[in-house]
């Protein structure tokens, strides 16, 4: 943990966002890829232009499928050789059979859905694991904005005014964890990010994470599934980091690579409060 603390100190202020350009992939998508086992079957809900699935196909050799609402994005994904269905996550997940996938991914979309609870349940019906990334509404900037300005926060992360925002179901990291508990889903991994793509560690202090993280990425599963799988994921995540580095996808300062930060967020995997 001491080691973690040191690294944590170094990580803060470290801009590993540069790395995104090199991978040509959004950083949260990259973190999601660390959570995924090679050769697994993945459904990316709201897959956009297929960046994540393309990346996962290359690095993890996954069998990937996408669901995307925009025709243009579907066409772009198809041109990359990715299988995509044009459809609406809120209506079309119900047609997928049970346990058809290893992972169902919902990246920065849950807050824009009409029924987030139902979507989560659907995700864990069709897949063994769900990976959900979400903007944290309880971030300190938002809190201060609301406190001092008295109006709904508008920022880089949340660029819309209240009357035009697609984000109709905002939640905080804390809210999301509460919902998982209510649904009896266990959080197998969580990673916190700022908008500048810094990884953050809060030594398991959820309240602090809820204050400073702008995004959270969660790996969840139904409680009845064997928890031992988690260890494999941690192992695999390290492998992924190693592999990526070997592949020349070097972070701007590899010595401060935030594996430990990520591990500490794993240590902070509190199944209760």
């Amino acid at each position: 943990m001491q080691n973690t603390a040191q690294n944590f100190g170094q990580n803060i202020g470290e801009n590993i966002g540069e790395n995104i350009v090199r991978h040509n992939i959004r950083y949260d998508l990259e973190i999601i890829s660390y959570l995924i086992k090679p050769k697994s079957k993945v459904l990316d809900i709201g897959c956009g232009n297929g960046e994540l699935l393309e990346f996962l196909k290359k690095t993890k050799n996954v069998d990937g499928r996408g669901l995307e609402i925009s025709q243009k994005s579907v066409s772009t994904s198809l041109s990359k050789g990715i299988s995509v269905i044009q459809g609406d996550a809120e209506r079309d997940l119900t047609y997928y059979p049970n346990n058809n996938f290893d992972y169902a991914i919902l990246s920065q979309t849950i807050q824009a859905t009409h029924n987030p609870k139902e979507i989560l349940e659907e995700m864990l019906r069709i897949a063994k694991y769900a990976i959900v990334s979400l903007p944290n509404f309880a971030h300190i900037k938002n809190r201060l904005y609301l406190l001092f300005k008295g109006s709904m926060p508008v920022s880089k992360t949340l660029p819309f005014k209240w009357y035009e925002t697609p984000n109709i179901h905002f939640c905080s990291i804390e809210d999301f964890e509460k919902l998982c508990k209510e649904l009896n889903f266990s959080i197998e991994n969580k990673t916190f990010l700022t908008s500048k793509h810094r990884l953050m560690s809060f030594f398991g202090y959820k309240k602090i994470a809820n204050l400073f993280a702008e995004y959270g990425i969660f790996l969840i599963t139904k409680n009845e599934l064997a928890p031992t799988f988690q260890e494999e994921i941690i192992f695999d995540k390290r492998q992924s980091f190693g592999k990526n580095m070997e592949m020349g996808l070097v972070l701007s300062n590899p010595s401060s690579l935030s594996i430990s930060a990520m591990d500490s967020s794993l240590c902070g995997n509190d199944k209760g409060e």
Partner: protein
Amino acid sequence: MKVKSSFGPQYKEFEIGDVIFLAKEKPLKLTSGAEIKNFPLAYQTYGTLNADKSNAILICHALTGDQYAASKHPITGKDGWWSFLIGPNKTIDTEKFFVISSNIIGGCMGSFGPKEIDPETNQPYGLSFPAITISDMVKAQNLLIEHFGIQKLHAVIGGSTGGMQALSWSILYPQKVKLIIPMATSYRHSPQNVAFHEVGRQAIMADPNWCEGKYFLEKKCPEKGLAVARMTAHITYLSEVALQKKFGRELQNKNDFSFNFDPDFQVESYLHHQGYSFVQRFDANSYLYITKAVDYFDLEKDFSGKLSNAFNNLSPEIKFCLISFSDDWLFPPSEAKKLTHALAACGVNVSSITIESTAGHDSFLIESNALKNTIKGFLNNQ
């Protein structure tokens, strides 16, 4: 083998192109129970079959389409109906792929159909021609593929009735095809579509020149009935927006209404023209048989009321890309969606897209970047 054929109001002779006689030894059993043997199937090919015979793509044409997908039509002299898609360095690149465009049985462009001569009577079959189904058309195509010695097609692509054939390929011969691209099509012919077809058939049969299907003996042609059938059908291929945009309520070569029953509106004379040109290139009995075959198509019924049962035995390698068009009211996107969900429910690798369109059902025959990019991406990146 090259053959000649003739029909239409003037019974003019024209050159068909390649025709092959199939089922020479073992007869082909049709869905109706009838057996056919040594029957002709007309086709065109583009590109070259590679050494391991792995680059073949089968093109399935629509209801009144034909094998001239990318070559000049021998009667109309017009470019092939998919010339914008098929050719060297085009979306379906004939430098890379060997494209087989097959006529359907029941058709009238050189394949086994009601206007061909029955060897037993030495007269055209007419109404003694057996009833056919989409599956029968596909089984005949399969014999053609076997003739080429192709074990596995890279893709089967088709729109509308051709899309039904593509779907049937995946069900009848799942081991023989890698990619399936059905477009502007459905898992069944809807009651509304059956109704439109029936209007067309009744129009043909009500024409006194139809002569109970034996018009060829009298050297007659049920032109008017067939033209009305085409006019009705043609409306269903367009959209209200397309008609409004193309014609509005504009009058044809006049400033005021004629107050008689000559065509007043542009849209009327357009339909007349469509009817007239169709009669020159299509056989009336063929139209009766093929529309019936399409009306019979219903995968849901074939698989005891559960569409997904149709796709339960697919090989895991097979991939689908379903294309529908937003303003197609003949085969609306909702039907493609149902098909997509049935495929997804079986865990099949399916992609599906609804392309924004303003040309109605015929959008699959109209060049657009969205259509070209979708097909190109899917064909080349698997």
